[in-house]
C-alpha cells in the first residue's frame, strides 16, 4: 500500500465530507419527494369531486360519462314539488 502525503489526506477528507453532504441531501430529497407525492395524491383526490361538480354546473355535461343533461325540461321535478 502506498503512503499518502498530507495534501493527499486533506483531499481525501474533502471527498469524504462532500460524499456525506450529498448523502444527507439525498436522504432529505428522497424522503420529501415520497411524502409530497402521497400528500399530493390525497389532496388531488379530495379536490376532484368538487372540480367535477364545477364542470358539470358550468357546461351541463357529465365529466365522467360525457352525457349532456336535458336542460329544456325539468326531468326530476325537484323544483316543482308543490
Amino acid at each position, binding site marked *: 500500500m502506498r503512503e499518502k502525503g498530507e495534501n493527499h489526506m486533506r483531499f481525501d477528507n474533502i*471527498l469524504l465530507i462532500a460524499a456525506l453532504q450529498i448523502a444527507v441531501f439525498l436522504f432529505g430529497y428522497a424522503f420529501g419527494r415520497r411524502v409530497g407525492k402521497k400528500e399530493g395524491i390525497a389532496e388531488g383526490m379530495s379536490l376532484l369531486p368538487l372540480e367535477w361538480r364545477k364542470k358539470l354546473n358550468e357546461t351541463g355535461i357529465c365529466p365522467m360519462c360525457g352525457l349532456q343533461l336535458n336542460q329544456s325540461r325539468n326531468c326530476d321535478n325537484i323544483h316543482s314539488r308543490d
Partner: protein
Amino acid sequence: MWFETSEFNYLLTKVFSIFLMGIVIKIMDDYMDQDIDAIENQPNIYTALEQGGLPYALLLFSLACIFDHITAVSLFLSSFAVGMVGNLTAKMPSGLYGYQESMVIVLLGLVIFKIEMLSSLLIMAAIQLWDDLMDYESDKIRKNNLAFLLGKVECLLLAIIFFLLTAYFDYTKAIGSIITMHLILYIIKILLDNQYKITT
C-alpha cells in the same frame, strides 16, 4: 524522467487494465441484452462479433490480468455482482437466486481483495446508475432501470456519492473508469455505425 518512475508505471498498467476490463464488461453486458437490443434495433457488440464474442472477451480479460490482475478480477467480480442484482428473484443456472449469487461474489471479493473490491463495487454501481440515467428515455421496455425505480435525481446523486467514495479509496480507478467508459462507448459506437453502413 517522470514516465520512468514506478508511480507512472503503476498508473499506466492500472489504466490499461481498466480499459481492457471495460471492453470485457461491455461485451458481457451486450450478451445479456442482445434480445432487447434486437427488439429496439440498437447496436450490439456481441452480435456484431458473431461467434467471436466469448474468445475475444476471454483474451481481453487475460490481457487485463497481465497488466494488473487485482484490478481486473475485482472489476469483473463487481460487474458480475452488480449485474446480478438486477435479477433479484430470477433463479440462476447455479441454483441460487440473483441476489444470493451477488452476495456470495461480493463476500468472496471482499475477503480476497478487501479495499480494492470495495472501490470496484462502488465504481461499478456508479457506472450502472449513470448508465440507467442516460437510458431513461430510451429504456421503455426494461422496467428494472434504476432511474425508474429510484427517480432521476436520486439516481444521479447516488452515482455522484459512489463516484466520490471510489475516488476516496482509489482515485486512479475512479477517474480511469469514467474516462474509459465514455471512450469505449464512443469507440464501439463508431465501429458499429461503420459496420451498419457497410452492411446496408
